């Protein structure tokens, strides 16, 4: 973001207030200047001295400021995304990307929103990749969960152990390892090991055994959450109470209470201590439980 300097020295409070909208920030000590950020949303405004580097978007050369992410570099070059862009924060898996460097044989992979551009990067994003997915009813798993996995995703058991998936994963998940855990029947291990998966499909695009790792892992996580993790008894109890309408009256009364009185109740409510053990601390006033 570009910046302009405004008046030096400490500004009267009112003035700072008036400028707060445009994100004025006041420096401390030596600087003692008001600095006004340009409000640009997500449009990149590179600093004046930014070094420009060549990158190759689908083979076409563009000059972009270094330190941008691949996603912002592609937008900086003038592209408007339809596919290949989602949360822009590394969690949705929309921006799976392959790249190589000029003169380097090695194929690399990453998320466009999380990978920083570098000189000579040749980039292509994967707009979509077909994956195999089985239809199932999670509530109706008859057999032993491991057998169910074998029935729905037999290809998992044909993993050749090459490790390309693990090397390709932009979330640093040891994909091959969770596949091995699945084969062994350690579904808890596989569920936890695959937990950070953003389902971008990069592993699947590279698998020589044609496994769709991320869909199999999705199934295993739900199996684990539903059939292996112990149920929360206090939740079951509260579920019943709510279903029976236990709180209808209490809540109805609150909605009819004057704002002044609600405000009083709000201020007077007890706060559970931070370090209290779950399920052990109880409030003094138990009337509304």
């Amino acid at each position, binding site marked *: 973001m570009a910046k302009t300097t405004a008046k030096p020295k400490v500004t009267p*409070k009112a003035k*700072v*207030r008036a400028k*707060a*909208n445009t994100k*004025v*920030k*006041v*420096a*401390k000590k030596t600087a003692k200047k008001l600095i006004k950020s340009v*409000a640009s*949303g*997500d*449009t990149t*405004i590179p600093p004046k001295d930014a070094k420009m580097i060549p990158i190759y978007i689908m083979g076409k050369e563009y000059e972009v400021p270094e330190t941008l992410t691949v996603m912002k570099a592609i*937008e*900086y*070059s*003038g592209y*408007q995304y339809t*596919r290949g862009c*989602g*949360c822009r*924060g*590394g*969690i*949705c898996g*929309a921006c799976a990307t392959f790249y190589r460097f000029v003169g380097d044989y090695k194929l690399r992979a990453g998320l466009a929103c999380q990978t920083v551009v570098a000189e000579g990067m040749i980039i292509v994003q994967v707009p979509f990749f077909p994956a195999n997915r089985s*239809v*199932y009813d999670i*509530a109706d798993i008859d057999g032993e969960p491991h057998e169910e996995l074998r029935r729905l995703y037999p290809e998992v058991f044909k993993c050749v152990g090459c490790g390309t998936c693990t090397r390709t994963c932009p979330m640093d998940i040891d994909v091959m390892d969770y596949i091995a855990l699945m084969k062994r029947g350690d579904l808890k291990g596989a569920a936890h090991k695959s*937990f*950070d998966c*953003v389902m971008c499909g990069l592993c699947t695009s590279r698998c020589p055994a044609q496994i769709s790792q991320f869909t199999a892992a999705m199934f295993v*996580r*739900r199996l*684990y*959450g*539903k059939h292996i*993790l*112990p149920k*929360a008894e206090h*939740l079951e109890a*509260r579920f019943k109470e*709510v279903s029976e309408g236990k*709180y209808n009256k209490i*809540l109805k009364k*609150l909605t009819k209470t004057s704002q002044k009185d*609600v405000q009083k*109740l*709000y*201020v007077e*409510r007890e*706060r*559970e201590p931070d370090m*209290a053990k*779950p*399920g052990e601390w*109880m409030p003094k006033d138990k009337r*509304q439980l």
Partner: protein
Amino acid sequence: MSGYTDEFKKLIKKVEATRAERIEIARKGEHFPALTMDERKRWLDDYHPDYKPDGRRKVLVGPNKGDILPEEVAAVLESKSRLDIKTVNLDNADYETDVLVIGGGGAGTAAALAASNEGQKVILSTKLRHGDSNTVMAEGGIQCADQEADSPYFHYLDVIGGGHFSNSPELVAAMTNDAPLIIHWLEEMGMMLDKLPDGRMKVRHGGGTSRKRMHSAGDMTGAEIMRVVRDESLNRQDSIKVLEFSPAVELLTDKAGTVVGAVLYNLETKEYYVVKAKSVIMATGGFGRLHIQGFPTTNHYGATADGIVMAYRAGVKLQDLDSTQYHPTGAIFPEQNVGLLITEKVRGLGAQLLNIEGEQFCFPLEPRDIESSCIIRECLDKQLGIPTPTGRYGVWLDSPMIDILHGEGTVRKELPAKYIQFKRYDIDISKVPMLVYPTLHYQNGGLAIDDSASTGVKGLFAAGEVSGGVHGRNRLMGNSLLDILVFGRRAGLNAAKAAKKTKKFGVPTLNHIDKVHKELKKAGVKNPMTGPTLLPDYAPEHVQLRRW
């Protein structure tokens, strides 16, 4: 910690110097005093961007004509349709369905599942991929009063107090009452909720909570919820049809103004599709990508207020749309992470906010708008912010406290995604603090709904961030994931009930658009933009200038 400059390293020493004492006090269960109700009000008036007159104006048309709204919002509400009414052919429907859900995030998908449970055929149309939404980005958790010491009563008080008593009471009652039903539903679907070995839910505090009721799935709670509900909808292919990259661009109404379908736009083939439906659910999310007051945002790429625009044209009233949530802790360094959300869970786990002297200046778990005001005050007014090399300012978020308080490895275990995102730039947040500043996070207001998720315009329901009233003028952490699922399900159920009662499809028209265009002309709106926005354009100036 090589990701930090030498200047930062020196300043971090000050943080480390005060840490031992702060830890000792935290272990005693004592904390920095929270603001009084009176101080809260003053802090908001003086420092919160929502409370300033700049960048706002009267909206000139529609049901909320005369309301003062942010410039960016007023402009889309005064936009013209992208459809040329004269050439649109509504005679033949491309799709007919019981329930049309517009939006493929958490609210839309929950709605689709609920309608499918009622035996209704559902079409879910979404602008990007199914699941591309703010839901996936919600990290910290979902609130639910399911512990013995808690009840919907206390949850209600927390929500309405956090919202400064501006929330719609009936919506708060609905949300807090349904919360245990929602968590139970998620558990039943096999969501990997964080639990203790005996199955008890792991819960913690969030900003403004009186009880520990924040449920989580690592620091990917929203992503895990989205994965599970999407996966479940994929198991219902006989009743739920998903149309990706096909945003709705206009609702269809019959002669009486009842919503009877929508026009979708295939972003790739540039065709329009006519969908006839017995009920329609709007679940398009919020407006972060309109960049209110130029703020960067934590929101996903599609958050462009499309549903607000379409529903407003069909006559739905808006509530509190002038209220924007700035999340107190957006990353402000390194530059690549600027705007990135740092979940409130970090503070829930005990990390404190510190100024350049390494000293606390606020209770770390105030409601979000108060917390943001505290940080802005510390940087702007008290000038105790930490400058970054790119001219920004922030305060420290002392994440290393978490491992000290809860045991080595807690940061990695409880905040895996954040850990990776900083590790990438050589910053180990379990060892060194992060630099943060408020960032545009959430649309507090939206379409007015009642507790059955009805918009008041017949045939149209709404759920999630697109709607308003639930959180009033300020939302607490962990109530958005709850909101989308509670009202998503209520919308799905009630839309299905309404669809069952509707024997025949309505005759679709665009009469309401004709009216809107006439009103624009009458109000003297010159050169209205075309709406809804659909996709943001981040091409820099040098490219835009060459688009002759």
